[in-house]
């Protein structure tokens, strides 16, 4: 049994542009989805194209299941035709002169014509395209186009799916509606996938694992929760959207707990750090509880961090409201609209912010 790992270590230099240098591994046996996540210009698409064989790296190696796809030193560059990957570029690139059936069947080159037809039928059913078989792509909605593109990619039984911003071509309501659907289709397809996105909610919904890219490099790779809850450094923390990232100093440590000075305040977090270490502290806005300061109302609390402060500003973002609180350092809390009204939050109000110790993440 061959080692079912995709090993990527590539470097691509652009003249008068950035250098993309990424290294990561993906277990292809698990049929998981890896999200390449990062701001635009961080090199996500370049990596995807290098994997598809559409772009030639300047250095490095790409090995899939012990089969060398690319090796700069040995001058090996397997052409896209022989890599058996399903590639979905931005905008899907459906063939506009072919109908849905012809698009799906385009890459099937084995078996009799009867077998090819039944393979197309199978995909039409899997991706719920019944009744649309004779339509041209121009007569399909964005979501239908996406399903056709997925069907076409799956038709060749690819060993790996590569999706470049699969939802960005759709308008916002469709995009939000299709996130969950795409996830289900990827699971149903049973093929390992690498999905490029710059959208945090897309990344969270679509991926089992995430690789965060910044400035042409993979900064952190891990399970979704691992990366979003435990960003490896400040850049990753900013990219994955941990709202509060502030510097602090370790004051003391005992029994797996550390006390930190952060701005004017003191925080308790999990971990073991030498006293005096300068660290970064990240707290997700969702992990902050806001309490109205009412004398005598608070009983005993499990939350270790009780931070009196003053509301600086209130910013609505979708269904959540982001409250900036000055509690010795700037802290962002996300609260729902009903909570905002019940608490009568407004700038200048005195509040107490509660944060459990495990939600305070220390980046060394």
């Amino acid at each position, binding site marked *: 049994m061959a080692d079912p790992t995709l090993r990527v270590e590539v470097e691509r230099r652009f003249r008068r542009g950035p250098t993309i240098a990424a290294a990561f591994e993906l277990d292809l046996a698990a049929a998981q989805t890896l999200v390449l996540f990062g701001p635009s210009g961080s090199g996500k698409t370049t990596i995807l194209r290098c994997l598809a*064989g559409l772009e030639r790296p300047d250095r490095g190696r790409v090995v899939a299941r012990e089969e060398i796809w690319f090796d700069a030193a040995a001058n090996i560059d397997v052409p*896209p*035709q022989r890599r058996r990957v399903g590639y979905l570029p931005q905008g899907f*690139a459906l063939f506009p002169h072919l109908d849905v059936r012809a698009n799906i069947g385009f890459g099937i*080159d084995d078996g009799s014509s009867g077998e090819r037809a039944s393979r197309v039928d199978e995909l039409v059913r899997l991706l719920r395209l019944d009744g649309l078989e004779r339509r041209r792509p121009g007569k399909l909605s964005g979501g239908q186009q996406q399903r056709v593109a997925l069907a076409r990619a799956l038709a060749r039984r690819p060993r790996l799916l590569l999706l470049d911003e699969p939802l960005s071509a759709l308008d916002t309501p469709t995009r939000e509606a299709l996130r969950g659907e795409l996830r289900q289709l990827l699971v149903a397809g049973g093929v390992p996938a690498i999905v490029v996105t710059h959208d945090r909610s897309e990344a969270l919904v679509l991926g089992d694992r995430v690789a965060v890219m910044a400035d042409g490099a993979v900064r952190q790779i891990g399970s979704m929760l691992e990366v979003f809850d435990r960003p490896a450094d400040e850049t990753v923390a900013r990219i994955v959207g941990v709202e509060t990232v502030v510097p602090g100093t370790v004051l003391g440590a005992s029994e797996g707990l550390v006390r930190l000075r952060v701005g004017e305040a003191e925080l308790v977090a999990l971990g073991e750090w030498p006293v005096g270490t300068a660290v970064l502290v990240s707290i997700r806005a969702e992990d902050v509880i806001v309490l109205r300061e009412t004398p005598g109302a608070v009983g005993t609390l499990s939350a270790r961090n009780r931070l009196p402060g003053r509301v600086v500003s209130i910013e609505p973002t979708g269904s959540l409201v982001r409250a900036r609180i000055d509690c010795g350092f700037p802290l962002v809390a996300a609260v729902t609209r009903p909570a905002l009204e019940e608490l009568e939050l407004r700038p200048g109000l005195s509040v107490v912010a509660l944060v459990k110790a495990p939600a305070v993440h220390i980046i060394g």
Partner: protein
Amino acid sequence: MIDWQAVWLSVRLAATTTAVLLVVGMPIAYWIARSRRPWRPLVEAVVALPLVLPPTVLGFYLLVAMGPNGPLGALWAGATGGRLAFSFEGLLVASVIYSLPFAVQPFSVAFAAVDRSLLETSWTLGRSGPATFLRIVVPLSAGGILTGMVLTFAHTLGEFGVVLMVGGNIPGETRTVSIAIYDRVQALDYAGAAATALPLLVVSFAVLAVTYALRGLTVVPWLTRR
């Protein structure tokens, strides 16, 4: 009164030139549309040269090249034992070169308009470069290919200067319609010139009208996407 022999020769020359340029012009056009080599402008300039050169200049160089001592003429003589200048084959070579931009430029514009991501997707779906060209590029460029073919046909039909220089005026071999008309006018036979000129005008107009009508019909379904 109509010089049917000349009309038939012109149509034969135009059709053969169009067929040759379809085969020769498409790879050149595809290269121009896709290449990023620094010397691409040089190739483009060579292809476009017949647009600006007087036919007599082009005809002169072709005549020299096709003469018994010229490189083309010697090659031809070595291969077939025959003479290239003042023959139908020589005329065909000259027409192909003279009409090159009329085929290559519309082809190239159409090829360049085909979204690169369609080609890349086809490659990842296992289709080779030539297969992708035939299954994706050609159908999506049908309008431009048709335009190039019609322009080539019409342009060759009306060719005069180059024909005169390299073909001369041999009935059934190199005497095309335009030469025949010129010949009649020189002989002050205006009625004969008019009789031969009219079919040329009618055929040219009919070909262009039918083409534009066809193009309007066939191209629309996939050019009006989204």
